[in-house]
């Protein structure tokens, strides 16, 4: 029988994959993808907890996360386009202008 921990484990693994992506990629668009992976991983965990505890709060959170993700993508992509117009690249190494 599939239990809560199964779902949590798969969520953890997906989250880690997303993390690896975040760490590894230098292209901003790819970073966005990796972030989406992480968000989705978390959503699974919420949905699973919601299910196994018979509590809708988890689903609500997942729901809001999706809303946040949507806004994030909308604004984020807008910024990416502006950046691309300005620098002609989306590589983080080229965008490092705030050196301390």
């Amino acid at each position, binding site marked *: 029988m599939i239990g809560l921990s199964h779902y949590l484990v798969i969520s953890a693994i997906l989250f880690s994959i997303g993390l690896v992506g*975040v760490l590894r990629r230098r292209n901003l668009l790819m970073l966005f993808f990796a972030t989406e992976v992480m968000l989705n991983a978390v959503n699974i965990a919420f949905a699973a907890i919601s299910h196994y505890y018979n509590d809708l709060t988890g689903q609500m959170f997942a729901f809001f996360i999706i809303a946040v993700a949507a806004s994030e993508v909308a604004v984020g992509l807008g910024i990416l386009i502006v950046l691309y117009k300005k620098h002609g690249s989306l590589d*983080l190494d080229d965008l*490092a202008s705030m050196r*301390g």
Partner: protein
Amino acid sequence: MENLVYVALFAPFVGSLFAALFGMSERRIFVGIVASILIGIAFLASATLAYNLLMTGDVVQIRMMDWISAGDFNVSFGFVVDQISVTMMTVVSLVSTVVHIYAIGYMDHDKSFNRFFSYLSAFVFSMMVLVMSDNFLGLFIGWEGVGVCSWLLVGFWYHKPDQAREDNPSISPSWAANEAFIMNRIADLGMLVGIFILYWNTGSLQYDEVFAQLPYLSDAVLKGAAIALFIGAMGKSAQFPLHTWLTDAMEGPTPVSALIHAATMVTAGVFLVIRANPLYSMEAVEGVSFFIASLGTFVAFYAASMALVERDLKRIIAYSTLSQLGYMFAAAGLGAYWIALFHLAAHAFFKALLFLGGGNVMHAMHDELDLFKMGNLRKEMRGTWIYMTLASVALAGLPPLAGFWSKDAIIETAFNEHTYFLWGMLVLTAGMTAFYSFRQIFLSFHGEDRYTALGFHPHEMYKFVLVAMSPLAVLAVITGWFMGSYKAFIYKIGESVQYEMSAHTHHLANYLGLIVIFFAVTGIVIAYLKYARTGEKAWKRDEEKEQGFFYKLLKNQYYVPKFYEEFITKPYMMLSEIFWTKVDLKIVDGTVDSIAKFFYGAGDKTRSMQTGNLSNYLNWMAVGAVLLLTIAAVSAMIG
């Protein structure tokens, strides 16, 4: 009567304020006159009080107003006029009057004439507070007040520059003034502690209330209070080891030396012991009292020995003051309080006279004080010569002058108490006293004329000054004759001041007196043979002898000032410097700054993390996240 008390107390204060009004303007002769008259009024009031007390025996006690009250502590400005304080009041106001008049002449050419009178009258006021107060804290007001006035007056010629110790042992007036103030402050701490002890154990500082409690106090408390108060007395009365300031204080104008550093302020310590006589005559503090007597005897001898070789006119008189203070303490320590008080009064008269005479010489010699540059001044300054000789005879203790009676009584007391060693020392010191005081007379007024060659043209002091000094001269002669009646007067105060010689001593009294006289005369004769003769046998300076060990030891005051400078002043300065530059700036502030520097440095080092590259930040974020996760996991496992 109460009004008279206020008059005696506040007349000098009014005089001081009046003179202060003109303090910054040029010399106005009436300032001196008004101040002198006001002091004279204070004297008349004191004398009336004394007469009244003698006639009626009623002690006047008044309470002016509250001063400090906090918690259970309560002290007010209260004044008492009893036999002890009235003696002091009369002596102080009398000598002050004479000195004020004298100063009109002496300070004639000084541009700070008005300021001088302001200070001098303020001093008299403080001294009156000191002697009249009916509680220890009121006494302390006067105690500190005279200290400040002494500081102002010693440093009166503040514009003089510092000199090397070899050229001028007192360095400069302002230096001497500071030394006097600080030394006195050291002693004042002792006095404050004494006040604390008395307050916490008796719950009051009123003399009568404190003394009434004394029999119920433990021995340790009594001893502690007696020691602490005596430390206070040691400072003001310049007892060893706090004595060096007194000779240096001679940097002040001569009237100041006469009034403060001979007749009145320095006797405040003796006065304190006499005032607190119920405490010092307790059986528990016998050891302390004996210590006081021994220290007094030691100082009497010690100061006299330094006076033997001194060349400075004023410093010799200062040493003699020190020596006589030693006598007074010897008497007070041995329990003969009234004799000490009597000697105090007699000493005030002849010592003030001696100082004022010295001032005349100084005035005549244009501030030259070196005895070796004088000689045979007698022919120019007959009046002064007579006064000084009289005073020296009194000091040397020859009958029938004042010094003989009082000093002889002290020496007799030492014999009576079976402290024969002290007795011997005191007798020997009496001989030395006679020697050095006549050495000074002979060197200045007799022998060969040495000053003309140096270009001095001495002249006698103003007439009115000499007339003004006459009361002192008269008193220096006659005071001793009233010893018996004074004894009757002061005995009324109570048992604790009463002191009688035993029958055995009484029996031997004449012989003892003769011994003292013999020593004194011997001293005078030696001085005469050595210094007073003219012609072939005239005194010549012996450079070789001045290189001798003892001579140099005495000349340098047993190297005590040098010792203080090398082992206290300089190390204190050094330690202060170290505390400031090393400890405070480097260690304490350094620690604070290094904390700040740590944060600054940490920021500076970690700044390189801020590459501006988002990828790097993400890496760091991940590291942080992993760390937090691990901590959460571990703590969850443990918890």
